[in-house]
């Protein structure tokens, strides 16, 4: 076969000087710049491009756009491999490699077709009725085979090498679609001064105008108007951009295939760009889609939509067949017959109507087209390509040799976007189609979408809608509508030809749903449109049933003996056409998936070989590799360091809130369970907050800095929620309080220096600052400035139980303070420690933390009940509900193994000793650590009636590890119960 044998000598909007080579299933072929993959394949006489989903029937190219149900191909390879790409949408580039799908070993002979021969055993929903035996788990035997058989193309398993972007944009008027109506609308709104964005999913603007010859009035109109648009700097035109969804607030999601029409995007450029369009007005000019006809074997390659064939003729200069039969039930296919004849094809036109209306007849005047009226297709010959058509008609029965069949079953407006917000499309009998129902303010529709099929009418409706959208007075278009070769479907629809003829009558080509399947669904009672759809999978394909919905609906309606509107329609869901997940994610991939929070000392930790742990958005130093090969060795060394000498830990992640105002004390007194009215300046206090429902919310230390100024700290995890909660109370519950709260978490770096040598380290590091116990006793607070001017805030608080201080400084100085302390601490053996050691130290002291503050514990559960004062505070009323005060609640205890060597682990369960370890047990271990001080594992646990069980032995089980350790319940303070070490110094 010669090169591009079906390419016409002239015409088309392709670039004949730009020859592009590509391969189809390994076969080298060529096309031209401006081709789609489909037009290039057709130019090479290739119709058979795939096998159907269920029955593996040979399938060809059926359309010229996003409605394509059949021609799904796999593009590219390796990491860029993409299955299920519509050949009618993909643009051709030089070097493109294309493979067909769902066939083995080859497209021509496909083993799967055997399944097709068994098709009588595979009616709609057959799988609900079988595969249930022999065993209860039988489905697990059948499923793998069924999964392999299903699923169209194969996806890559490699990470995507391409970039994607998101973009926000704002406009007064968004016009969706660049057909005659869309172009007129954009010109009208743009001319009226509105900020306009026009989106067109194809590479070329023009919509149905692209089906007109390049040498035509329509084409000159198209180019003139596009030039005018390009001249308006308040109009932005986005081609290759699909408006995929209409969302609340007149927001439209659109995806621009910016660099998907080349082998690889240029460096730095995105393959696709997802636009979020914030629109004052959304004007839909999304056009209409032609419907196929129902007859036996109507799925054979070579059977195409009439409008698509005309588009291939004039936009791509491709003649898809030389012996054509056009079968139509309306006028709109007559121009296709005429133009095929003019292009040199032998054409027969079969009109299902008794006689052709005058307008239609004129279109054929003087053309060599044979016209047969009152026609019906009886039989289709040919498997991999249509060979002949047997038709009955007014004058009898004829067998028509052919290699192309153009079908025209009327038009369906593309109402998808118009119904994304729940608006029900409404059926218009005169069109035998659904059009958008009433649209909300800020949205309108024009052109074929509202049934204005004639070019002039479409242009006029677009122009008026455009002016209205821009809020401008409505005038007549300043330009005359072009005469075109197109014809509207004609006066009213003829009665739908009933499906007939031999062979399967396909309604949904992609999902292999036949007229018989629809009848079966009806017979079995799946009669509501949704049941029909779900039972037969009608319209559930990647084409969202663009060519099948109405035909299926009409069949069901006639079976129910109702009209179409009574039978109803299914809702259309976004996206309008499938959207790559990569485009939706934009650059928020890999490390940039979520932002990271780092402390001012982060880089130091990294440089010094810290292993980091993720705490929400934060990265925290978990342990330092210098201190041990793995976390278990390192944290023990770090704990020992604190108990025996001095260590320091980065606590900058703590939430810090500046609380100021004449009523600040009263405010704290309401949000904390304990008392705050008498806290003197220069003192800190531990506080606990409850939720309204009486469970513990958060805890932390709050210091009184000045007469009406407090410095609140929260846990790292709850910093954000606590801040919002305080703001909520101040703005909604107690607006009368004169209090301002400001997050200062990022203003301050924080370092805890802990251990018997901590005071001496501070004295050395902070010249001129008195850190003596008189000026800084336990729970003392001081703002101070070092001799050299370094500002610090000192808190004498201890999480470890040792003498300890928290030192804060403005975060810009954080690393300096850290290094200064390290330097000054060297003589004392100061070493940093990480969060693992921090956790171990607090377990030894029994301080509740994250694992105990799990949102399900009460003050009493945590042994903090005595903190509550007799005053109103948030959560006080509901914490007294029966279930929260019941005696059998799980409360905090310590656990230690009877045998020193035995392990205790967080996540283990606690059972009564000597009873089977079944059910929920009497408690669970919340935190566990090796205690270097005691030389064995210790744990904190929440255990029923915990405090009453001190001394009891229990079983601590981790069935996952096959462990059951006998342990003793003890008080949750393992070392220094009298708290003397906070004074200790060496």
């Amino acid at each position, binding site marked *: 076969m010669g090169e591009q044998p079906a390419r016409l000598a002239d015409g088309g909007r392709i670039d004949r000087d730009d020859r592009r080579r590509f391969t189809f299933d390994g076969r080298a072929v060529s096309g031209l710049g401006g081709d789609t993959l489909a037009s290039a394949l057709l130019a090479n006489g290739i119709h058979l491009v795939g096998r159907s989903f269920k029955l593996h029937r040979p399938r060809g190219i059926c359309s010229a756009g996003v409605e394509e149900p059949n021609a799904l191909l796999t593009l590219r390879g390796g990491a860029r491999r993409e299955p299920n790409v519509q050949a009618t949408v993909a643009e051709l580039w030089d070097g493109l490699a294309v493979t067909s799908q769902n066939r083995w070993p080859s497209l021509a002979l496909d083993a799967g077709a055997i399944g097709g021969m068994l098709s009588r055993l595979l009616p709609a929903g057959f799988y609900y009725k079988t595969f249930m035996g022999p065993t209860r788990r039988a489905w697990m035997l059948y499923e793998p085979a069924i999964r392999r058989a299903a699923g169209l193309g194969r996806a890559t398993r490699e990470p995507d090498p391409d970039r994607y*972007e998101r973009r926000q944009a704002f406009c007064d008027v968004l016009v969706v679609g660049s057909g005659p109506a869309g172009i007129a609308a954009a010109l009208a709104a743009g001319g009226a001064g509105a900020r306009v964005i026009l989106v067109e999913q194809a590479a070329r603007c023009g919509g149905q105008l692209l089906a007109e010859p390049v040498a035509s009035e329509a084409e000159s109109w198209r180019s003139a108007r596009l030039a005018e648009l390009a001249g308006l700097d308040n109009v932005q035109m986005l081609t290759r951009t699909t408006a995929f969804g209409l969302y609340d607030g007149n927001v439209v999601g659109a995806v621009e295939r910016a660099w998907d029409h080349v082998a690889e995007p240029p460096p730095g450029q995105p393959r696709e760009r997802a636009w979020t369009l914030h629109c004052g007005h959304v004007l839909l000019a999304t056009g209409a889609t032609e419907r196929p006809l129902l007859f036996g074997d109507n799925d054979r390659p070579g059977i195409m939509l009439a409008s698509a064939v005309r588009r291939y003729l004039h936009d791509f200069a491709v003649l898809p067949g030389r012996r054509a039969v056009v079968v139509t039930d309306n006028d709109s296919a007559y121009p296709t017959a005429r133009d095929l004849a003019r292009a040199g094809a032998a054409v027969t036109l079969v009109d299902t109507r008794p006689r052709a209306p005058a307008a239609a007849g004129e279109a054929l005047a003087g053309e060599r087209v044979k016209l047969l009226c009152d026609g019906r297709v009886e039989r289709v010959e040919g498997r991999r390509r249509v060979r002949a058509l047997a038709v009955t008609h007014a004058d009898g029965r004829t067998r028509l040799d052919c290699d192309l069949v153009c079908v025209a079953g009327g038009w369906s407006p593309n109402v998808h976007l118009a119904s994304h917000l729940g608006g029900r499309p409404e059926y218009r009998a005169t069109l035998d189609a659904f059009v958008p129902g009433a649209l909300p303010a800020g949205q309108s529709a024009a052109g074929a979408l509202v049934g204005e099929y004639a070019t002039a009418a479409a242009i006029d409706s677009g122009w008026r809608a455009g002016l209205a959208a821009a809020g401008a007075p409505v005038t007549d278009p300043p330009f005359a509508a072009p005469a075109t070769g197109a014809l509207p479907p004609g006066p009213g629809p003829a009665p739908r030809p009933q499906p007939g003829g031999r062979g399967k009558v396909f309604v949904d080509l992609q999902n292999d749903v036949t007229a018989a399947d629809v009848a079966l669904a009806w017979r079995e009672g799946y009669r509501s449109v949704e049941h029909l759809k779900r039972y037969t999978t009608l319209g559930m394909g990647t084409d969202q049933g663009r060519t099948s919905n109405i035909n299926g609906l009409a069949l069901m309606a006639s079976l129910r003996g109702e009209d179409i509107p009574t039978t109803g329609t299914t809702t259309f869901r976004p996206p309008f056409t499938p959207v790559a997940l990569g485009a939706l994610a934009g650059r928020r991939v890999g490390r940039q998936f979520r932002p990271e929070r780092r402390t001012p000392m982060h880089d130091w930790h990294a440089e010094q070989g810290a292993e980091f742990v993720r705490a929400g958005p934060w990265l925290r130093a978990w342990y330092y590799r210098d201190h041990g090969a793995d976390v278990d060795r390192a944290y023990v060394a770090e704990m020992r360091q604190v108990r025996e000498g001095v260590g320091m830990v980065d606590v900058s992640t703590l939430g810090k809130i500046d609380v*100021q105002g004449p009523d600040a004390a009263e405010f704290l007194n309401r949000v904390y369970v304990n008392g705050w009215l008498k806290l003197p300046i220069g003192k800190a206090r531990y506080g606990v907050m409850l939720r309204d429902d009486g469970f513990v919310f958060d805890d932390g230390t709050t210091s009184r800095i000045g007469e009406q100024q407090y410095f609140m700290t929260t846990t790292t995890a709850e910093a954000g929620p606590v801040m919002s909660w305080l703001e909520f109370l101040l703005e909604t519950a107690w607006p009368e309080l004169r209090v*301002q709260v*400001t997050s200062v978490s990022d203003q301050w770096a924080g370092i805890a220096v802990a251990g018997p040598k901590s005071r001496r380290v501070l004295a050395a590091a902070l010249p001129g600052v008195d850190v003596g116990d008189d000026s800084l006793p336990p729970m003392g607070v001081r703002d101070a400035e070092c001799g050299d001017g*370094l500002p610090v805030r000192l808190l004498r608080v201890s999480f470890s139980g040792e003498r300890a201080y928290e030192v804060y400084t403005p975060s*810009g100085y954080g690393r300096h303070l850290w290094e200064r302390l390290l330097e000054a601490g060297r003589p004392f053996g100061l070493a940093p420690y990480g969060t693992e050691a921090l956790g171990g130290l607090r377990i030894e002291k029994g301080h509740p933390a994250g694992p105990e503050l799990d949102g399900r514990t009460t003050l009493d559960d945590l042994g903090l009940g005595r903190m509550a004062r007799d005053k109103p505070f948030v959560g006080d009323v509901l914490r007294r509900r029966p279930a929260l005060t019941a005696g059998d609640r799980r409360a905090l205890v310590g656990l230690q193994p009877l045998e020193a060597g035995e392990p205790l682990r967080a996540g283990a369960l606690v059972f009564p000793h000597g009873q089977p370890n079944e059910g929920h047990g009497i408690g669970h271990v919340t935190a566990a650590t090796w205690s270097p001080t005691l030389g064995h594992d210790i744990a904190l646990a929440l255990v029923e009636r915990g405090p009453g069980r001190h001394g009891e032995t229990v079983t601590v089980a981790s069935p996952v590890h096959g462990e059951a350790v006998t342990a003793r319940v003890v008080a949750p303070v393992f070392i220094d119960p009298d708290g003397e070490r906070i004074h200790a110094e060496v």
Partner: protein
Amino acid sequence: MPRSEREWLQSALAGRYEPGVRATDAAPGLSLREIVDWDLVQLAAWRGRDDELAGHIGSVLGTARPAPCTGVDADGLELLAVAPLRLWCVAPAGDPRLARLADSLDAAVGCVTPLGHSHARVRIGGPAARALLAQEIAIDLDPAACASGRIARTALHHVPVLLQCRDAAAGVFDLYLPRSFAASSWEYLLDLAEAHGYKLHPRAGPDSMA
């Protein structure tokens, strides 16, 4: 500011800031710079006392309070109306007027919170500045909708930031990034900027142009 403080002070972008040009073609679409040597204090009024706060501003600076979501420039000291009852006062480090604004505020009117260390500040200019910001920020930055002096506290990929339009005509913006997020957000911005090409200038003070 005193020499010693300069040595102590570390930018949140330290280690992630290498001035130079990153662009595929000769003309980078973006000009980026970290702004340093500035200070920030927040003045907040108790509810119902914001007029007195405005009076206080007037008496110290002789300027009127800025309208919501705008800033006014009192020869180098910028007042930004960032929230109800709240003003940010931004000035070159060591500007004595900051201290005066803070120290002389009547405690019966409102309170002062130093926030000078809580943000990193970057200046974004060049023809692609709006395009860059529009990749993440859902605010209409068209000069007609966002004039010079306009500010907006908004979100940049989950991070609360303050965006200031310094020059609508030239398309120059300042971004205040919360310190703990700054390094991460900066890495993200540079990644987005690759699509446009950028020139990263050496750090400079508030008065430097992009």
